[in-house]
């Protein structure tokens, strides 16, 4: 009888532990922390790459020769990886870092159509005294552009308990003088990561 009671209690305790273990949880994670669930590109990679390249551009190039802040336009980073990665997040981060540094001015490529539409609207409907003037937009001096690439290696299919995957990412960024076509700065940020996942699960 004593044994049966103990067995029942053990069963209840084990079940409770199992349910607690399976309970869904939510917690905030610092945006500066590095969290990688697998080898794939994630938010901490985006931040690391954007910081490295913006830092490199600010530290190695001085374009303030004429005394004016150069005007830049950022083009989308081409995604040449095998993942659907929104590269707009990378360009936004780089632009933000450069803007905060205060050494460059920016014109927006992504807002170009909206600007045109708004100006058109103002010309048609707006108060003449507050209309934005047409033909007064800043011209960019430099284009920021880049390409994100990846190389993946998977372990060959064979008898094993874990599946390993190695992914290498590189983001090449360059700054091109719009007048001369000269590439005045280029750099690359790289990262490589190996992950291992168990093949057998419940």
């Amino acid at each position, binding site marked *: 009888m004593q044994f049966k009671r103990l067995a029942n209690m053990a069963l209840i305790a084990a079940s409770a532990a199992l349910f607690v273990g399976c309970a869904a949880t939510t917690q905030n994670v610092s945006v500066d922390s590095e969290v990688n669930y697998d080898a794939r590109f994630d938010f901490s990679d985006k931040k690391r790459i954007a910081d490295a390249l913006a830092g490199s551009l600010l530290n190695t190039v001085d374009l303030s020769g004429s005394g004016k802040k150069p005007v830049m336009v950022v083009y989308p980073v*081409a*995604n*040449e*990886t*095998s*993942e*659907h990665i929104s590269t707009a997040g990378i360009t936004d981060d780089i632009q933000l870092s450069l803007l905060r540094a205060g050494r460059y001015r920016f014109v927006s490529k992504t807002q170009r159509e909206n600007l045109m539409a708004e100006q058109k609207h103002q010309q048609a409907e707006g108060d003449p005294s507050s209309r934005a003037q047409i033909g007064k937009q800043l011209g960019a001096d430099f284009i920021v552009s880049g390409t994100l690439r990846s190389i*993946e290696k998977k372990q060959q*299919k064979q008898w094993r308990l874990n*599946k390993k995957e190695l992914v290498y990412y590189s983001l090449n960024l360059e700054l091109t003088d719009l007048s001369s076509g000269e590439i005045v700065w280029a750099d690359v940020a790289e990262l490589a990561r190996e992950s291992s*996942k*168990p*093949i*057998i*699960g*419940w």
Partner: protein
Amino acid sequence: MALRWNRAWRCACLILCVSLGGCATAVFEEARSQYYAGDPVGGVALLDQAKLEDQIPGRDTLLFHLERGLMLHRAGLYAESAKAFVQASILIKDDERISLSEQATSLLSNDWSKRYFGEYSERLWAHTYAMMSFVMADEAESAAVEARQALQVLESYPEALESATFSRAMIALSFELAGQYNDAYVAYRRLHQQFPDAPVLAMATYRSAVQVASEETSNWRSKVKDDVWAGYASEGPEAVLLITSGRGPRKVSASLYHFNERLSFPAYVQAPQPHTALSVRDDAGKVLATEQVSTDTFSVAQTALSERGKLVLAKAALRGKVKHELVKGLRDNDQAAAEVLSLVFFLLEEADTRSWQSLPARLTLLRVPLAEGQENLTVSYGSRDVTLRLNPQQKKRPQVFSLHF
């Protein structure tokens, strides 16, 4: 004795319950019927409703995305279709994980209780359709991402997917449209090896060679026949037609019998349909192109399934052994219960015939050189004609159309 019967029935009922989950396929059948009746949007609505009402079990989620993605593509809802195929690709990537619970259940019942990961051919076509949908949605860069994933599938199963040439053509086209000419050049060269007599492919290879400033550019120019060269206007505009036709293959259950036991395994059967000639004509009725790169889905699906065949048969044999031993063990204690269990096992021995059934019988890619000022193209498939209106302003990039007959 009553107690033993009770146990046997409980055991039988449990196994039946697990297996009857396969009845969820009725939802797919209903949606496919709607699709075949020419109402892809209705098919999607049925699938979405079933998903909302939890009628689609988790193990069939891949099929849900595949069928839904294709129906959305056919309805012309390309961005939505691409999203569905991306979801399918995510599930396919999980294929190497072995679930002990699923394996154990499938040993007692059948493979219907396992998650469906798709045949190798279906995995490739998921990426192929994703490329088609992204291209049609004017998202060339995303199509190129899918092209890289499709290349990985082709590299993983080279023999099974040897004749999946339409997918290779889509890979090359996706890279070309995304302006990723290095990759396009490699893909076109590979495709040209398979179709050395397709003159328009030589032109595409030559063009990508020019873009990457390859040393072999003049060599590729010499492979472009003069009449093909002359067929292009000065700026070289062209149309690309992605044409699907007919109904794809279905899986059926085939069985091997040994006394009162049976082993079942899946096999593909072709839907009966004659091979119909395809041609493209200009306004004056001049034939501009006939079939160039085409894939027979039955042939590729059958080869891919045969490659997996040994594994399927080994699993069926193991399942037969497990069931045989269980019945044998029970027979020593309770003959009647053993007979019931044997009958249940016999009935449950059903091959997993889940497959992506809305696939077409044939996938064809045609590249058509366009003359100056050409406004229309007429595509003929058997007795059916479809007229496509061209955009005369679009000269630099190919104009892509997706059609189904």
